[in-house]
């Protein structure tokens, strides 16, 4: 089921076209990655979803119907530029944001106690934000983002500023929130976390969608005719006219080679040729990292797999 959909959304700022006929659809209870180089239009899209600005044209649908003004209570938003009132106390501030999202004081207090305990922030309640470190303030802001239990959580670069320990705590919370039923729209440049967390992605460049789909499928598609083959023992695999060895790795009495097919032949044929060289224990398409795909898409200005 699709929880959120943007259809042919365009937005122009002066002479720059920030979004050009962009469409995305986010399945319910999934983690959706919004990728793209700086200035691609991600923040504009996020602001449009948050109704901070309106699109010039196009449609936005939440749960199949048009996005309404009071749908903002169903959305939680962590902006890239974190912002808290520096002179205000942590607890008061969290309470204030919760009340702006329409939660009663008593209910907000209950939920804040739960989250502050869970993320080990209880001591911070009476501290001013300016007394906190950047990572601590980030945690506070993360809590305020999810406190009203939104259906759709939008996180813009949620991991920057966190040490590895806290980053993994936040990753676990994101997975926890998804399992509890929320849908997460994640904008990030950290491709490792995209592979780790995201079910689907859209890659935006120049306001257009360049690449869209399930992370696994994209990686498989971009694998093209490259394979990773592991043999028993330390051996040398000879090249032939059908494939080329890109890379050989001897380790733990195993040999892993990355090959690239030069002709359009079936995997069985390659396998039978490879079997001559030794005992095969693994044969996989060589999945490119999201990082590679990102760079290749942005450089080639095309979302088609190129080899």
């Amino acid at each position: 089921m699709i929880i959120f959909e943007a259809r042919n959304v365009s937005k122009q700022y002066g002479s720059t076209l920030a979004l050009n006929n962009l469409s995305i659809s986010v399945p319910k209870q999934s983690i959706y990655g919004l990728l793209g180089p700086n200035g691609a239009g991600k923040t504009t899209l996020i602001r449009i979803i948050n109704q901070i600005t309106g699109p010039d044209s196009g449609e936005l649908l939440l749960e199949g119907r048009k996005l309404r003004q009071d749908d903002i209570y169903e959305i939680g938003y962590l902006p890239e530029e974190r912002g808290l009132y520096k002179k205000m106390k942590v607890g008061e501030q969290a309470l204030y944001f919760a009340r702006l999202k329409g939660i009663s004081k008593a209910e907000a207090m209950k939920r804040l106690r739960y989250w502050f305990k869970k993320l080990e922030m209880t001591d911070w309640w009476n501290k001013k934000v300016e007394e906190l470190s950047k990572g601590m303030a980030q945690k506070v802001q993360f809590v305020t983002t999810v406190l009203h239990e939104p259906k759709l959580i939008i996180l813009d670069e949620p991991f920057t500023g966190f040490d590895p320990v806290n980053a993994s705590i936040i990753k676990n919370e994101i997975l926890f929130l998804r399992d509890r039923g929320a849908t997460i729209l994640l904008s990030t440049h950290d491709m490792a976390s995209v592979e780790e967390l995201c079910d689907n992605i859209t890659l935006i460049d120049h306001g257009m969608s360049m690449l869209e789909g399930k992370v696994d499928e994209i990686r498989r598609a971009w694998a093209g005719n490259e394979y990773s083959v592991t043999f028993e023992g330390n051996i040398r695999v000879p090249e032939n006219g059908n494939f080329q060895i890109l890379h050989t790795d001897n380790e733990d009495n195993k040999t892993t080679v990355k090959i690239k097919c030069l002709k359009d032949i079936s995997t069985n044929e390659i396998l039978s040729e490879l079997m001559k060289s030794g005992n095969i224990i693994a044969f996989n398409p060589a999945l490119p990292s999201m990082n590679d795909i990102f760079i290749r898409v942005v450089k080639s200005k095309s979302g088609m797999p190129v080899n």
Partner: protein
Amino acid sequence: MKVMSKISVIIEREYITRVRKKSFIIMTILAPVLLALFIVVPSLIMMNQDTEMKKIAVVEDGTDLFKNAIPNIKNTEFVYLGNVKLEEIKNNFEQAGYYGILYISPEVIHVPEAVQLISRKQPPILLLEHIENSLEKEIERQKLLSYKIENLDEIMKNVRTRVSVQTIKIDESGNVKETSTGVAMVLAYITSFVMYFLVFVFGAQVMRGVIEEKTSRVVEVIISSVKPIQLMMGKIIGLALVGLTQFLIWIILTFAIITAVKSALIPEQKITEAVQSIPQDIMSQNAAAAMQTTTVTTTEPVQASEFIKIFNSALNQPWGLIIFCFIYYFITGYLLYASVFAAVGSAVDNETDTQQFMLPITLPVILGLFVAMSTMQNPESSMAFWFSIIPFTSPIVMMARIPFGVPLWEIALSMFLMAVTFIIFVWMSAKIYRTGILMYGKKSSWKEIWKWLTYKG
């Protein structure tokens, strides 16, 4: 959740965080204390001066023209030394216990400067006035005597007259009201000053608040929960309440302190004199008390009737109209300026960048205050008329004019123009604000702001 309850959450935050600030608490308490000191200390000093008994020797070089011509006044005794020459006492009057010597030369009848007061210290101005008045009267009397008119004393009694112009305002239907220009001036001064204070000081605070939210990037989180216009209005209203709270506390505290000091230190009779030194403006409410300034020098029964007159006049002010206009001009004027301030705050990245936009805003406010001050001298001038019609200055200038009486059509026109201008400006400011708060690092200029005004949605 309803729009209003969200604005009220914002108002609550703006109000509480500001009212709890140390600087607010200090200013709120300190200002009335200083004000009270400013009022009480001079009167205490005056009292202390008065307790010193002065003896002044009156010397005439034996002509005996002005024997007992100068009556004693409080704390000052005039001792007539008929047989003493000036030279004899000139250098030793202090040892003899005199504050000074008043030397009256016989030529005084023709030469006004032929009187000298010799003393070690600078004599108080009131003492000099008393001497001059007494001598003038005595010389007049002696000159009249030289005409040898019969029953002169009786004639003089009959002739003595006192005039006090009673100002009566009459409206078209012929209703007559006693008024006092003094009361009108005090009222005009207070209302226009409060207006200026609230509009300017708290309008500027709105701007600072907007800049704070923009630079700390809180604004993006908030406007994902509320509309920018709600945030802007919440801030503007919250600050208006802070301003009104502060003003109210100032008035109450000032009165409390003055009343306490008055009852503790100053005996009843002297308070009327002390009041003289009060700058009329501040001690607002009690217009009647401040107005005694004009009456202190007159005699007792006159003072009482004067008091009643002022009291009547204060009652006769068109209070309903004044209060209505004050509320109307305060709301529209404050909203107009505060929203423009908010727009400026949203357009810049930090406070130093506000310079280029500040002058066009502060100019009309300051101009308004100047015109309001001169309006009190001449409420009918065409300058007063135009500045009370033109929005931007009308809230301040019109409030200064109303106590003197303004034709209803002028008020209606001024209010109408104000309403139109305020709606246009709040609308434009909201548009600039909405775009400006999310713009970073762009050099904001008038041209850029004009572009923001034309953005859609």
